[in-house]
């Protein structure tokens, strides 16, 4: 009952179109003033301490690193390299756009920016080569979502933050440790590559069926040259993953170091931006980070209200008593997340839903890392589903095709992603094999 009330207030506030963070905060106050005896002071405390964690500080650092390299020049280098490698296969440029999205995703944490950067260069080029515009739009809009699955990923940091410090128990009552940022990043690698491969396969299949043009095979000299140009950008992911796994930095430190690295590369190696433009990048990154940190603060307050009303605990025992089982529960989670994903943005969904679903998942024996990756893939699909899907918006703006047209163009790839989600949900090894192999748990 209480749960329904809380979520009803939240839903009403959300549909007015007010910022999600504000809606969360006002829900908390509406509930406090109207329905419960929790003292106001205890809430004030959460305003200050909600983001007082060093792990959370990885978010602004990763955003800054990404923003230094989220530039047309970097995208162009990635595209050249991708095209030289796979351009001669069926669907050449389409395949190259998927690969370029995957490469760009390893630098940028932002899916819409990936769609924009890769799409604005490749979609017109594909049209000139004789592809229908729908083909490129569909491939890029979906592949752009790889940004949050291939590390570094802000959404993964959000999940780690939302669940860390929660003391939860497994099916046998044993205490289960929450997923760390480093392990989640490592766990995202295989699913990221796998999804990229599947999206690529869909691209090639459709190109082969429709007999779209191929490009001439690029000579190795050109490939090596293209690789040498893009390698400086790609080193970012090597620094982050190698640094965390090699015990050189903590994830937050890795993020800060990668921001400095990205700055050096962008200004002095690539010369894409000048020193005079650096304050602009800092400002844009600070604003984006502040927006996310503001959602976190208010989501922490919201979660506090939920816990003090015992809502996750009730939900947990209800689901366990109902006998959903692991399979049924995971199916339910996917359906719920895909539905919410239609109308809301990833960070807010993860921050609101993870604290509720995570204890239940662990209780049913789902690995926290596996569950996190599952959430991320759901969010990724949500970016490409109407009516609210940032990737679709960007693709639509780029191609001058309407939202319905873009959605229709994307369906083969979206269907592929859904198949992948099903596999990932029920085969935990896809996400867990690599971290286990590396001895991280």
């Amino acid at each position, binding site marked *: 009952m209480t749960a329904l009330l809380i979520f009803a207030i939240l839903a009403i506030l959300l549909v*007015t*179109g007010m910022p999600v963070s504000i809606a969360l905060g*006002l829900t908390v106050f509406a509930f406090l003033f109207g329905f419960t005896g929790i003292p106001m002071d205890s809430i004030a405390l959460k305003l200050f301490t909600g983001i007082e964690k060093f792990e959370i500080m990885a978010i602004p650092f990763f955003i800054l690193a990404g923003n230094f390299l989220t530039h*047309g020049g970097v995208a162009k280098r990635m595209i050249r390299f991708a095209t030289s490698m796979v351009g001669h296969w069926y669907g050449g440029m389409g395949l190259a756009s998927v690969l370029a999205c995957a490469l760009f995703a390893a630098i940028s944490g932002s899916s*819409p920016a990936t769609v924009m950067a890769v799409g604005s*260069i490749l979609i017109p080029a594909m049209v000139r080569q004789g592809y229908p515009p729908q083909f490129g739009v569909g491939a890029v809009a979906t592949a752009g979502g790889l940004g949050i699955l291939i590390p570094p990923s802000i959404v993964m940091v959000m999940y780690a933050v939302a669940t860390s410090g929660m003391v939860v128990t497994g099916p046998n009552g044993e205490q289960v440790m929450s997923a760390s940022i480093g392990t989640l990043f490592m766990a995202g690698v295989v699913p990221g590559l796998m999804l990229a491969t599947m999206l690529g396969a869909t691209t090639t299949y459709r190109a082969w069926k429709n007999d779209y043009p191929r490009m001439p095979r690029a000579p190795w000299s050109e490939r090596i040259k293209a690789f040498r140009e893009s390698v400086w950008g790609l080193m970012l992911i090597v620094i982050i993953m190698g640094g965390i796994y090699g015990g050189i930095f903590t994830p937050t430190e890795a993020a800060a170091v990668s921001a400095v690295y990205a700055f050096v590369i962008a200004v002095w190696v690539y010369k894409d*931006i000048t020193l005079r433009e650096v304050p602009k990048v800092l400002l844009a990154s*600070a604003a984006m980070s502040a*927006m996310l940190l503001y959602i976190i603060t208010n989501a922490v307050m919201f979660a506090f209200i939920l816990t003090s009303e015992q809502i996750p605990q009730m939900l947990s025992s209800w689901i366990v008593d109902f006998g959903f089982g692991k399979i049924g529960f995971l199916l339910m989670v996917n359906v719920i997340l895909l539905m919410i994903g239609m109308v809301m943005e990833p960070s807010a969904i993860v921050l609101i839903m993870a604290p509720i679903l995570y204890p239940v998942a662990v209780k049913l024996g789902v690995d926290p890392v596996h569950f996190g990756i599952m959430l991320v893939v759901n969010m990724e699909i949500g970016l490409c589903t109407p009516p609210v899907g940032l990737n679709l918006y960007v693709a639509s703006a780029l191609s001058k095709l309407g939202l319905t047209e873009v959605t229709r163009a994307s369906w083969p790839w979206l269907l592929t992603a859904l198949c992948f989600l099903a596999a990932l949900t029920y085969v935990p090894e896809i996400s867990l094999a690599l971290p286990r192999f590396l001895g991280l748990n």
Partner: protein
Amino acid sequence: MTLRILDRLEEILISVLMAVAVALIFVAVLHRFSIGFAADIVGFARTNDMPALMDFARSFFKTVNAIKLTWAQEACIYLFVWMAKFGAAYGVRVGIHVGVDILVERLTGAARRLVTIVAMSGGVLFTAIIAWIGSDFVYHVAKGGQTSPDLEIQMWIVYLAVPLGSALMCFRFVQALWLYVTTGFIAHHDHGAVEGLEEEAEDLSKGAHA
């Protein structure tokens, strides 16, 4: 004029906080590296019985290790707390706070106007409440005299970011509401913005990829 100065100050503050935090953590990592390096030299000198090198390495190690940077993490957190609170206010001005605008987009005329005004007033209300509770909280903390564990600065100064940032944010919401009521304009941040794409499009038309 005063407003323009406030706008600039807000932008400079959050950009500088971001830059300082990055630099600080980067230096802290470098510092840890150099200590590790110095310790390795000491170990090398010890196993290879090189007393001269050992003396040098030991003094190098002592010098570097005497620089205390254990406060860097705490400082980074506080810098970002300030950046977050003031950046959120800046975000209202540029329309970066995302909402679920699917329903509003379908509305027209007076209904749309009304819902939008309600939504923006929600922002005014919430940030005003926070500014008020926040001040009260800061007052309590100041009386308690608590300091931070590493930097040992007064906690109320750190916490001041909340009422100040929220008051500024409230002001920004009022500003945005006023702008909407008078001109119908709403700021919208473009989340898919990427720099440096125009020149690339030109490149392609010259046949670089064909």
